[in-house]
């Protein structure tokens, strides 16, 4: 049987989002916390079914240390997709670059994504990459089990639990509860930084034209970003504890905040 291959797409996100476009450095970039469970799920799959885990990230050189971190956490190989012409990408252009990379890394069994990124929060890249690759996608996966030789995943949707059996290759976006993330051991961190780092692929290596990537390949035009002031009000609820709890629940239900 051929060896399994699990690809996890990860993003280096900016720790403290600045007001304007932020320059990413090693010091202010972290592994997108929503990607860590996808990586952990890939490790679970490798433990059960064998194979190798590759992490892929499109980003500036400052994303390199984040990929090293994925190596320290246990990835077998990391690829940084890095080219000045990739800058300013929207989700479509990002997906185009990731899809090209997956194409070159194929064969692949499963491509895993976080549900969204902590700094842009669109939640679109996983779905758009799967679309670009013409692969089936299950979004917001909560559990994954290996069942009768097939991959069974569940997702919660509007109060219904959906269960899918998937054939490989396929793509998933993974919710944080799907896999337990582990702490990074110091020895592995040291080894990852002493060993070979991520492979770095530019547009040329991906066989993409500059027009397909970065700002040039992005149909989205951001006209303006305006911070919205939050209006907070405070109401006090009177009465004994039981009455206060009842009143609080009633107001939350009335406000449509809980069902």
């Amino acid at each position, binding site marked *: 049987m051929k060896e399994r291959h699990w690809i996890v797409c990860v993003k280096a996100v900016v720790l403290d989002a600045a007001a304007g476009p932020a320059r990413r450095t*090693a010091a202010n970039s972290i592994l997108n916390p929503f990607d860590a469970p996808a990586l952990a799920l890939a490790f679970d799959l490798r433990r059960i079914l064998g194979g190798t885990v590759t992490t892929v990230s499109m980003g500036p050189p400052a994303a*390199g*240390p984040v990929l090293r*971190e994925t190596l320290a956490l246990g990835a077998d190989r990391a690829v940084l997709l890095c080219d000045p012409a990739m800058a300013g990408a929207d989700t479509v252009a990002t997906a185009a670059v990731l899809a090209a990379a997956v194409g070159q890394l194929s064969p692949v069994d499963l491509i895993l994504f976080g549900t969204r990124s902590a700094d842009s929060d669109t939640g679109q890249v996983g779905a758009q990459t799967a679309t670009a690759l013409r692969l089936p996608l299950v979004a917001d996966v909560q559990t994954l089990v290996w069942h009768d030789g097939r991959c069974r995943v569940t997702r919660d949707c509007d109060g219904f639990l959906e269960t899918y059996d998937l054939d490989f290759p396929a793509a998933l976006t993974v919710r944080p509860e799907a896999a337990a993330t582990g*702490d990074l*051991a*110091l*020895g592995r961190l*040291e*080894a990852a930084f002493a060993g070979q780092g991520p492979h770095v692929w530019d547009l040329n290596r991906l066989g993409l034209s500059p027009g397909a990537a970065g700002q040039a390949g992005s149909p989205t035009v951001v006209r303006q970003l305006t911070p919205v002031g939050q209006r907070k009000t405070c109401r006090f609820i009177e009465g004994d504890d039981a009455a206060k709890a009842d009143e609080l629940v009633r107001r939350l239900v009335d406000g449509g905040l809980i069902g």
Partner: protein
Amino acid sequence: MKIELTDKHIVLRRTVRSFADREIRPIAAAIDQEARFPWEVVEKMARLGYFGIQTPRELDGAGMDSLSYALIVEELSRASAGIGLCIAVHNSVALYPLLTFGSEAQKRRWVPPLARGERIGAFCLTEPNAGSDAAGIEATAVADGDGYRVNANKVFVTNGAVADVCLLFVRTGTTGGKEDISVVVAERETPGFAVGDLEDLCGMRANPVSSIRLCDCRVPAFNLLGRPGMGLQIGLAALDTGRVGIAAQALGIAQAALDESLRYARQRRQFGQPLARHQAIQMMIADMATRVDAARLMVYRAAALKDDGRPFGTQAAMAKLFASETATAVTDLAVQIHGGYGYSKAYPVERYYRDARVTRIYEGTSEVHRMVIARGVLG
């Protein structure tokens, strides 16, 4: 000269900080108040390599450099100085002499379990009548058959109540001079080895600092570290490295006090504005931040010199002196900025204040450090 963190150090700092924030900070006040050694966290730290930071990989350590060690101790101490102390002492003054002066057989026997954190190390120099004057120790190891009979009364042993492997400074000769002093390794299981009561300390209460007594304890000749009479040389080398750790610990405490003060000064309002708008408070904050920054540069420089294989003893002593005096000054100002709340256990700054104080005392007092520095400077 460049004192700059590499990508590895940056990722390491973030890794340790997030571990400490998640696992240690939430229990830091409780383990201080209950004087409890938090095994549940210590066991996790052992699995993650915190007990073998600079131990080579082939001896089951993480194989990291001194700057990494300093960053780790700083970040742990920022959450709980008592935990930072446990890690600092175990990695430096307990493990370092074994790695540097131990024979291959000794290293293979003691280092891997220590590096894996399955056993905890301690450094036993201080006695009731010998503190700053290390050459004044009275503990003895008398040749007896194929080993030694050891009698010792060691006090203020960091990690004492949980220590399995103790580096014990003893007299192996009878001249009464420095050339008598040697180091033997004493293990907890040895008959005659007894842990005394916990010291009831002002700070560092999460660390089980205690006395250790050995009464006619038979220790095999194998357990002698280096040669007879090398004790002070081993002790001084250990303390040179240890200083980087204690300096990093003081730095971590000072940073925690500064963090807490910034938060409080922005949020607490008096006379119609946040404390941070009052110039008197701004002056305090400026002094605190400046001292912390200077201490950090000194600590990282001492570690970087060591990593480069260059002489670092005087710089490490300067870093320890300056960082510990910074920690006491900065935690004092932090209490001041918090007013009455700073003096209450409702806020962590009173703990920082108590924890900081001892950094000017242990592993050589400030006075002893000034002597060391003066020797380095005057030649």
